[in-house]
């Protein structure tokens, strides 16, 4: 079990100590061209989560590879995962080619970018195009809006992905007191505690469809939340929104998770892995009264 940050939820150059407390650091999504991102207001709290419409602000792949990546290597001891975004399969693949460097431990394909159609064919097409040009481990990051998670996941696996990252944000809106959307863009990505049941269901459905490694995420705030994702079939855990409230969350969650596992009488995360799947298969309690 490795503990990562969720893409876009940590800047390792600004907070290298936080990044170093993880098992691997995942960059914010890198796109072909530099993007300034959306006009503020970009973030808003909701009652049980938050919305963001950062707009994939990033320096573009050229500057990323030339300038940011070397600085990340200097600042960090942990492996670096690069999150890749784009608008066509070819753009994704070209970025993957540029990332064929020792410093990059893994590529995470963000398949939930605006304007990227996430029907299974399209996700698979992107994965296949990248698979053709890179030998790096390829993780596909999937949105919970996918109607049939099993189908999506099987298509992504068939296209050559080495792992999955689940889940990205849901689409959400919140209004201010005067009934205007709080975010300038009107709508943003909904993350945090409210996402937990959605993330558990997505990981469970994906685990039923594949034995690929899965980075589980969505509202994880405590060791117990991480444990539940592992029980649903996550092999690794990523922390997103919780990092905003608590930069010490990696160390805390790790400690809490170890305590949870111990209190179950288990030795390690592996013992708990996927236990929720067995339960559904075996337990159909027909009530007779």
């Amino acid at each position, binding site marked *: 079990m490795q503990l990562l940050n969720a893409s876009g939820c940590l800047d390792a150059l*600004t907070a290298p100590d936080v990044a170093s407390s993880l098992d691997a650091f995942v960059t914010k999504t890198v796109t072909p061209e530099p993007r300034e991102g959306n006009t503020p207001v970009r*973030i808003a709290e909701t009652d049980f989560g938050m919305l963001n419409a950062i707009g994939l*602000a990033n320096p573009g792949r050229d500057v990323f590879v030339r300038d940011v990546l070397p600085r990340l290597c200097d600042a960090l001891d942990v492996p670096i995962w690069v999150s890749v975004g784009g608008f066509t399969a070819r753009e994704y693949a070209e970025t993957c080619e540029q990332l064929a460097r020792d410093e990059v431990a893994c590529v995470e394909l963000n398949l939930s970018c605006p304007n990227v159609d996430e029907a299974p064919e399209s996700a698979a097409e992107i994965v296949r195009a990248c698979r053709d040009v890179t030998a790096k481990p390829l993780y596909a990051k999937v949105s919970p809006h996918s109607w049939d998670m099993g189908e999506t996941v099987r298509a992504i696996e068939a296209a050559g992905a080495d792992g999955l990252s689940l889940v990205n944000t849901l689409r959400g809106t919140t209004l201010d007191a005067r009934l205007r959307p709080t975010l300038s863009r009107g709508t943003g990505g909904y993350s945090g505690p409210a996402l937990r049941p959605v993330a558990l269901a997505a990981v469970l459905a994906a685990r039923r469809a594949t034995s690929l490694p899965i980075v589980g995420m969505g509202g994880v705030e405590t060791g117990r939340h991480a444990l539940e994702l592992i029980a649903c079939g996550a092999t690794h855990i990523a922390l997103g*929104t919780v990092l*905003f*409230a608590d930069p010490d969350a990696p160390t805390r969650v790790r400690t809490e998770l170890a305590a949870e596992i111990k209190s179950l009488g288990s030795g390690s995360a592996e013992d708990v892995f996927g236990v929720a799947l067995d339960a559904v298969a075996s337990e159909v309690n027909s009530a007779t009264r």
Partner: protein
Amino acid sequence: MSRPRRERRSVVAVEAIGAYVLVRVTRGSLDPGIPGQFFMLEAPGRVLPRPMSLCLAPRGELAFLLDPIGPGTRALAALEPNDRLHVFGPLGNGFRLDVERPLLVGGGIGIAPLPYLAEALEQPPAVLGFRSEHHAEAAALLPGADVVIDPVLVTDAMPGGRDVLACGPEPMLEAVRAIAPDAQLAWEAPMACGYGACYGCVVEIDGELKRLCVEGPVLCSS
């Protein structure tokens, strides 16, 4: 600059000051930092912490002045002595203190960082603007300050030829900048993290969108 820390602190007292609320917490081993820096305060029951300028640093305490305008600030204002909350800071860049003829300018809750700043600058002159007499009671935190009340504006009362250090609502800061181009201004933006992780707090600085929590909140206006 001192490294920010996150600690679980206890509430010492919660006191109404006019329309505002002063929340005093135990200092623990948190560094009060430079005036104009801020802390992220856990807001009970909310998902995200709230940025608050340090207002006062009494011995063994940190004190924050807040305006209860929404769910987060209202949750903070409802704290009671001995309640516990996480406090993370000091964060961001504070005011440069190497100024010759300082003048503090505050509007509304923008008074928050000024008492601690005044202490560091040995009680320089100050001009404060408030929207009502009730709000103006907070001027007690800055003894000797000139106080104006709407419709009179701070810019009507500001003496010239001074090194201005100001905090207040955006229109006030714009107006101050117009008459004091070199002023140090403490800005606000919605913040999720306060330490550069979310890119939520960007504002246009030198023609680019930059993170206010990293580059600011105090910016030199010119």
